[in-house]
């Protein structure tokens, strides 16, 4: 059934929202540009003087021309390390190389020689987790100075730190998912394991080197004086040690060889294929800017969003008369069948169990799930507790978590509290999760938190017999609000890699298309659910 649109594009509300969201999109674009390309000239010159290509040039040459590249977490670390590590010093994303969908991880030597910060490692581990979950082959473009020594305690010892990269590499290989590493620069210490644990690798003569200890370390350890090339360069590793497979006399040649290697990779049958040809939405995605509110507390009609994402704007709504604050239904995205759950308000008992049931239907129907979040939480209050809202919320979370079909999430507006859980927030193993620039996330809304904390403080003072003056209360309120606002923004979230990137709303359809195709490469675990508290 084709969705109708009820928006009035010339209303003041639409125009106000449009201007606001367009500005947010422009701001996003500006910040991404800076993160991707803003580098001191000195660093760019140094790279060029070594005959090296910029990492994004390497990337573009690697990719098949005329194909999309879905870059992930461009603004990782944008609010960390004083801005020292734009894009967390690396590029990750899903693209097409020699006709195969692959995950690409490229070190960025224009940022402190490509040294790995804690968030760099988190970003790389995330990329490899995505590769594992979706059975995506991986291409590594290696060029890193190694770990950022000053921050070593935050990037080395723990379970999900540097070691996890190499653990993930081994797992991918064991799963039969291919990996290629192209060594453009130095791969030192742990970094040496990236090419070593890749099934295939290419190394550039003169600039590429792989060694567990670099020349300074070797000199300090044994007194041996040796150049990087002699210690672990192309000819040593391709002719003598056999650590590297293909020598290349230039970066351009290395990329050509890399593409030829990928062309040898068997393509394994996907779990799901598109059922029908793709079809653009009937309604204009540009209107999304006018649909998204300019106030985090305001709700909006999610069907308008769905109508601008799915093929032909066609949506088969499930159980339309029941649990109306959660819109559920089937649609197609680039020909893939999907099940959509979208918030049109807070979750009540009925919307929660409708959601749980719909999730079960999608599992039965082998249909991937798309969660469009705008949730401030579940309904609270005595009446609802008595009706079992906690139980019903738990059932929805159980159904969502135990799903064996792939899940994708878009944070369209607010994501507060327990609502995040049921709607497949970060902790729930969605294959990919994206945010819009207007998105905010916290355990509860800023205003609400500020008010709650002020309320708590007030009661504290009442118990001790003091009374707080309105000014103190207001001060507490304002301070809480400020701290919250900084940490609830999409930019903070993306900086910490709580999402896989902020999307301009108009890019959502294409991003989901690429994501869905990748996700349909592999099924989830075995079907089955835990105990539903009925």
């Amino acid at each position, binding site marked *: 059934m084709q969705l109708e649109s009820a928006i009035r594009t010339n209303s003041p509300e639409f125009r106000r929202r449009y201007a606001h969201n367009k500005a947010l999109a422009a701001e996003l674009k500006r910040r991404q540009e800076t993160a991707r390309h803003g580098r001191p000239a000195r660093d760019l010159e140094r790279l060029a003087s070594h005959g090296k290509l910029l990492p994004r040039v390497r990337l573009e040459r690697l*990719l098949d021309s*005329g194909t999309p590249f879905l870059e992930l977490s461009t603004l990782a670390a944008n609010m960390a390390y004083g801005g020292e590590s734009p894009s967390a010093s690396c590029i990750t994303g899903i693209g097409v190389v020699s006709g195969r969908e692959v995950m690409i991880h490229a070190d960025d030597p224009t940022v402190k020689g490509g040294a790995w910060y804690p968030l760099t490692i988190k970003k790389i581990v995330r990329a490899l987790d995505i590769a594992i979950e979706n059975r995506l082959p991986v291409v590594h473009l290696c060029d890193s100075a190694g770990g950022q020594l000053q921050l070593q305690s935050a990037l080395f010892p723990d379970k999900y730190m540097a070691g996890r990269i190499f653990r993930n590499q081994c797992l991918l290989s064991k799963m039969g998912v291919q990996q290629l590493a192209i060594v453009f620069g130095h791969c030192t210490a742990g970094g040496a394991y990236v090419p070593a644990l890749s099934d295939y690798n290419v190394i550039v003569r003169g600039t590429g080197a792989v060694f567990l200890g670099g020349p300074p370390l070797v000199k300090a350890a044994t007194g041996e004086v040796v150049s990087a090339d002699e210690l672990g360069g192309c000819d040593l590793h391709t002719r003598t040690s056999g650590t590297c497979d293909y*020598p290349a006399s230039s970066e351009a040649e290395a990329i050509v060889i890399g*593409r030829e290697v990928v062309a040898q990779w068997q393509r394994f049958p996907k779990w799901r294929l598109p059922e029908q040809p793709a079809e653009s939405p009937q309604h204009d995605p540009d209107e999304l800017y006018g649909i998204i509110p300019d106030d985090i507390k305001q709700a909006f009609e999610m069907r308008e969003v769905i109508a601008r994402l799915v093929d032909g704007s066609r949506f088969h709504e499930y159980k339309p008369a029941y649990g109306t604050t959660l819109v559920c239904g089937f649609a197609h995205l680039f020909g893939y069948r999907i099940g959509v759950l979208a918030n049109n308000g807070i979750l009540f008992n009925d919307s929660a169990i409708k959601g749980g049931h719909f999730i079960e239907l999608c599992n039965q129907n082998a249909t991937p799930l798309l969660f469009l979040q705008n949730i401030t939480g579940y309904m609270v209050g005595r009446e609802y507790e008595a009706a079992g809202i906690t139980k019903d919320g738990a059932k929805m979370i159980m159904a969502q978590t135990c799903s064996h079909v792939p899940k994708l999430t878009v944070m369209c507006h607010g994501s507060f509290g327990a609502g995040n859980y049921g709607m497949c927030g970060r902790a729930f193993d969605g294959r990919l999760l994206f945010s819009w620039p207007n998105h905010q996330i916290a355990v509860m809304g800023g205003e609400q938190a500020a008010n709650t904390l002020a309320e708590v403080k007030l009661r504290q003072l009442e118990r001790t017999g003091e009374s707080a003056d309105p000014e103190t209360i207001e001060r507490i309120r304002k301070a809480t609000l400020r701290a919250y606002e900084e940490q609830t923004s999409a930019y903070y979230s993306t900086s910490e890699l709580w999402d896989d990137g902020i999307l301009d709303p108009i890019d959502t359809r294409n991003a989901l298309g690429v994501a869905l195709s990748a996700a349909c490469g592999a099924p989830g675990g075995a079907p089955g659910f835990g105990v539903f508290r009925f």
Partner: protein
Amino acid sequence: MTYRVRIDEREVEAEIVARRPQLSVRLGGTRHTVAASALAEGEFAIAVDGVPHRGWYCTIGRDAYVRLAGRTYLVQLPGRARERGTTLSQDEIRASMPGVVVAVHCESGASLSAGDKLLTLESMKLQLTLVAAHDAVVERVHVAPDSVFERGALLVSFVRPKSGEL
């Protein structure tokens, strides 16, 4: 991924720009749509920008010969250079046309001045004597009198002058 091809000694960059609804390829600065392309057993039919063309083609190594409208084009497709060892172009002499070696005038290790004779080659009753372009030390002569060679074949290599950092 750009393809660098040579046609009539001109280098042209080719890149696939789009595949739907039709294949669209950029040649140099111009985009062309390609439809209804069928290539089989030496004959082809293709529609470029809506205009149909028919003709003949064959590929010998990396050379593609295409004949249409009474004209034969030779297109050189990109082929990855063999990675053996890096040799810079000024340190070696390659044959500019196929032929036979008539005489060898230098030997390995010889120290030559610019203008000294290297080889005399003959091709279809045309003789050509190669001389050193600058002072150089011969590393190796890769052909012998009466040996036959193809265009591009390595004839003489020179000792690479010691340079600084790699």
